[in-house]
């Protein structure tokens, strides 16, 4: 995916790179990691170009989405190889510390070919952290992890972020980013949709009109009661259902139940009509 006209700066702390699949997140991360050449513009890491600059890897750890583990190695051998390739003074100590950090100690001497996806993911992170880099780049680190591993990864990344490192990770899942990152970059269609503090962006998201599909025993009676409310912006009918747009998500969800009750209508169905992530992105980009 080509990316266009994207400009931003990353500070220490955790930054989430959010966007639907195919939006250009990996392209951006690979450019930061010096694995893609920007056809125009520049990508600087600590003030130096990332392209054709092998020495910068002393300061960067990359956890790619693709499989980069040697199946015939154990996690310990993998982390140790990484430490040796970084020419660390005490490779064994560094490898052990990295393995401990990702809590892979129990399985560290088993071949990685027998690992689950989540374990391989952690082995990749251990190898990327072994030289204690200031900058950590992770491409879809939550892919293939179960809820427990997700929580573990969250805690680990939070600790790393709190220790003053610059961490950037990509995800197509809003909740992953919400849990972890103070700052986000939203990429859509190869362009930057939004950048900045997550709460601010979230507020933008909550102030957009939300649409709900409603089916009830008497749609028109319910509609009459709904249009009376200040937060209801639009009601439209479609055969046996109606769509309601509200400007205030919170107020709508709180008042809909008492409203249904007081108007004596039986509610069959109430569901958000446009809550997909793509819609959220589309809304952000449209602004």
């Amino acid at each position, binding site marked *: 995916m080509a990316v266009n006209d994207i400009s931003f700066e990353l500070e220490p702390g955790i930054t989430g790179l959010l966007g639907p699949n195919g939006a250009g997140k990996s392209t951006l991360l690979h450019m930061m990691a010096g*694995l893609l050449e920007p056809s125009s513009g520049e990508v600087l890491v600590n003030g130096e170009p990332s392209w054709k600059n092998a020495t910068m890897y002393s300061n960067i750890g990359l956890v790619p989405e693709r*499989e*980069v*583990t040697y199946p*015939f190695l154990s996690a310990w051998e993998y982390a140790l190889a*990484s430490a*040796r*390739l*970084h020419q660390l003074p005490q490779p064994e100590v560094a490898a052990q510390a990295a393995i401990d950090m990702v809590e892979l100690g129990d399985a560290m001497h088993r071949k990685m070919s027998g690992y689950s996806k989540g374990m391989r993911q952690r082995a990749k992170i251990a190898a990327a952290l072994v030289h204690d880099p200031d900058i950590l780049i992770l491409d879809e680190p939550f892919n293939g992890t179960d809820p427990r591993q997700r929580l573990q990864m969250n805690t680990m990344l939070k600790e790393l972020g709190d220790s003053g490192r610059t961490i950037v990770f990509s995800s197509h899942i809003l909740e992953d980013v919400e849990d972890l990152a103070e700052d986000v970059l939203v990429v859509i269609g190869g362009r930057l949709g939004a950048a900045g503090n997550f709460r601010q962006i979230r507020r933008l998201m909550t102030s957009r009109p939300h649409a709900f599909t409603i089916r009830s025993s008497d749609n028109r009676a319910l509609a009459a009661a709904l249009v009376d409310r200040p937060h209801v912006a639009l009601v439209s009918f479609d055969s046996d259902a109606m769509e309601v747009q509200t400007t205030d998500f919170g107020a709508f969800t709180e008042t809909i139940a008492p409203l249904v009750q007081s108007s004596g209508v039986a509610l069959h169905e109430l569901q958000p009509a446009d809550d997909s992530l793509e819609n959220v992105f589309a809304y952000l980009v449209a602004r």
Partner: protein
Amino acid sequence: MNSVLISLTARQLLGRRRTLVIGLLLALPILIAVIYRFSEEAGSGDATEEVALGLVSVMIFTLLLPLVALVFGTASLGAEIEDGTAVFLLTKPIERWRIVAIKVGVASVAAALLVVPVTMATTWIVHESPTADGLMAGLGLGALVASVLYCAAFVALSAVTSRALIFGLIYVFVWETFATRIFDSLRWVSIREYAYGWSDAIISINDNGSFYDPHLGVTTAIIGTMVVLAAACAGGTRALTRFEIGERT
């Protein structure tokens, strides 16, 4: 650092089924040599010379040696790029020339360790006096040079293109086997001819009618060898320096 690169490359090259297949293929010329040795034709001078050189130059130098080098050369770097593990190496502060040199070195040693003994053993089994005229040593040296040069070329090729195997096959079987026979001048650009040139420095027979038929002098062979090595290292290093990760491939 070097030892890690060497051991990773070696384990990836040899830890797979391909080593077994290559070993079986390389047993063929030895097997044929043994069969010949116990046949009725064995012992007559002319026939022996012909079989020895035919077996070595056609079966080993033209077919098996380039194939083995192609497999090791492309597997050493190309397979790592293909399966993604190259990213592990390339995101380390290692000079790119070092990666190329080690990939070439490991592939060459692996190929030579298999091919040189097979070349010398085949000659030794077929020929009554294999050490006469420097035949065994000369062909062994040729096999060594060819292993290194083919591996260097194919490692570089796999840094440049993901279709290294196809281009390698075309080079070996179209260029070296056919084109150089039709147009004599093309022999100046042939790894096999450089290898024969080195062999010729030791072998003292001059039988133009036989399969063993060197066309280049030693000096030309040495210059050709240097050019191939330098071009492979420079080209491979340049390609790795500009390595771009393939998205979703």
